[in-house]
């Protein structure tokens, strides 16, 4: 069974502009995939189609063998959890506790069990001491950690992070990325799909899919994908520091091609 199977998927918001064009993509269960692309490349649209917030124009999406459609929407949302970009738009409860409880209440989890689940997941994201705090007292990074706890408490098979770190300061960003790596270690079966334009985040994944103009441009392990740096720069994406360094130095006649990390690059440059 695959986590996600997408066939010939097309979507457009307006008549004259297709955002996704006959997209095909399979994502394995338990994998960590990063989808990168510039603003407007269709990556967030794809996430919304997977969880059934938008409806495909043509083609199909299956989530663990369930076709995404109106009939299956509850099954889909039981399997997929999503954390969005804006920490302020997804805080529902008046306290951290209420916020994590919201999804559980919807699933009619009994009170006694709910308290245990809230304790467990607030501890996991390091927000146990904040359970009775109001959202306005929290930083962006803390709010996103609460959002993550709320989603993980529902025990999803697939976690989508839709630019979940884009609005955070560097410290908040680091907090979330560290937490996601920890979640993946604790639960290797969890499928993670992170949508981002943060190149460093892409390196945490085992597979990188580059979207451009509604189509898949590259698909592979991070090192393989970033070896196409000229094409990535052409579609306005960033490339990792070391890749860029080697490229620019090569233009100056300094060849560091086989330096695989920064230390090696320093050693070669200072020889």
């Amino acid at each position: 069974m695959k986590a996600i199977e997408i066939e010939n998927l097309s979507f457009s918001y307006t008549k004259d502009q297709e955002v996704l064009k006959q997209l095909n993509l399979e994502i394995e269960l338990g994998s960590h995939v990063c989808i990168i692309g510039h603003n407007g490349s269709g990556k967030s649209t794809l996430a919304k189609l997977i969880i059934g917030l938008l409806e495909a124009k043509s083609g199909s999406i299956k989530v663990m063998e369930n076709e995404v459609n109106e009939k299956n929407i509850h099954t889909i949302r039981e399997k997929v959890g999503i954390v969005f970009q804006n920490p302020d738009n997804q805080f529902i409860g008046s306290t951290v506790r209420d916020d994590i409880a919201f999804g559980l209440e919807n699933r009619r989890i009994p009170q006694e069990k709910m308290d245990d689940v809230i304790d467990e997941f607030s501890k996991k994201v390091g927000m146990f001491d904040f359970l009775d705090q109001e959202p306005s007292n929290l930083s962006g990074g803390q709010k996103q950690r609460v959002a993550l706890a709320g989603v993980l408490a529902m025990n999803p098979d697939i976690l989508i992070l839709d630019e979940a770190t884009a609005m955070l300061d560097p410290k908040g960003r680091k907090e979330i990325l560290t937490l996601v790596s920890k979640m993946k270690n604790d639960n290797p079966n969890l499928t993670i799909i992170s949508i981002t334009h943060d190149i460093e985040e892409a390196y945490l994944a085992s597979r990188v899919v580059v979207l451009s103009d509604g189509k898949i441009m590259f698909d592979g392990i991070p090192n393989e994908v970033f070896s196409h740096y000229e094409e990535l720069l052409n579609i306005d994406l960033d490339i990792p520091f070391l890749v860029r360094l080697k490229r620019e130095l090569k233009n100056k006649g300094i060849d560091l091609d086989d330096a695989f990390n920064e230390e090696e690059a320093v050693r070669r440059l200072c020889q």
Partner: protein
Amino acid sequence: MSVKFENVSFLYLPKTPFEHLALDGIDLEILDGTFTAIIGHTGSGKSTLVQHINALLRPSKGKVLVGDYVIAANEKKVNKLQELRKYAGLVFQFPEYQLFEETVLKDVAFGPKNFKDSEQVALEKAKKALSLVGIEEALFDKSPFELSGGQKRRVAIAGIIALEPQILVLDEPTAGLDPQGAKEMMSLFKTINERGTTVIMITHDMDNVLKYCDRAVVMKDGKIVKIEQPSELFKDEELLKEISLEEPHIISFAKKLIASGMNLELNDIKDFDSFIAQIGKARSVK
């Protein structure tokens, strides 16, 4: 003419359980025509500081001088407040959330009209501002909500630029933009600064601080801990550690090269191009 903070303190929600000294004895002068970065962690007082510049917040103690305008503690009214808000334009974080008009052009013209410009003058100013931020005429009559995230941000910023402020205050203007969008946004501010506008920018992006700013004001716990040229700032290892500031990648790499014996001048590194040029130079001398 400049922006001057004289012993400014700001008490947030006084006499409530949330009372908090958000600014604590700030002394700061920002000269006309400069490009200043305000940096520091979330909660260090950066936004509180800049919101004093157009009197959105008033000092609990001390005073702020902005051009000829005075914003002082204990004074009920700020003289010519309306004019001050035109003189010092403030762009909030995620300003695109404040778009509201039916069309792009109307949204940008709203500001000048609100400041008593005639319909025609307001529209002229709006068109000029939109062209400066790179929004094509074809989009003028669209709803702002049909635009992409980056375009919305530009329109929102044009709304402030249309007021033709002498001082432009920006609260994390590149947050959430993709790398290319952020780059274009920064060169826009550079252009505006080169035309004589004072730019004051809160940011977490140290690459932008190094590349564009003349000075960085470092804040911690409501106080200014350092005012320094960016290239000097990133040499101060102790301070970097104290406020856990992440230096630009080119700087940390250059430091490793220096530690391994390369003869590099950190002061000459502003961006990736000058960084590569410096390495090339150091290697050829050898």
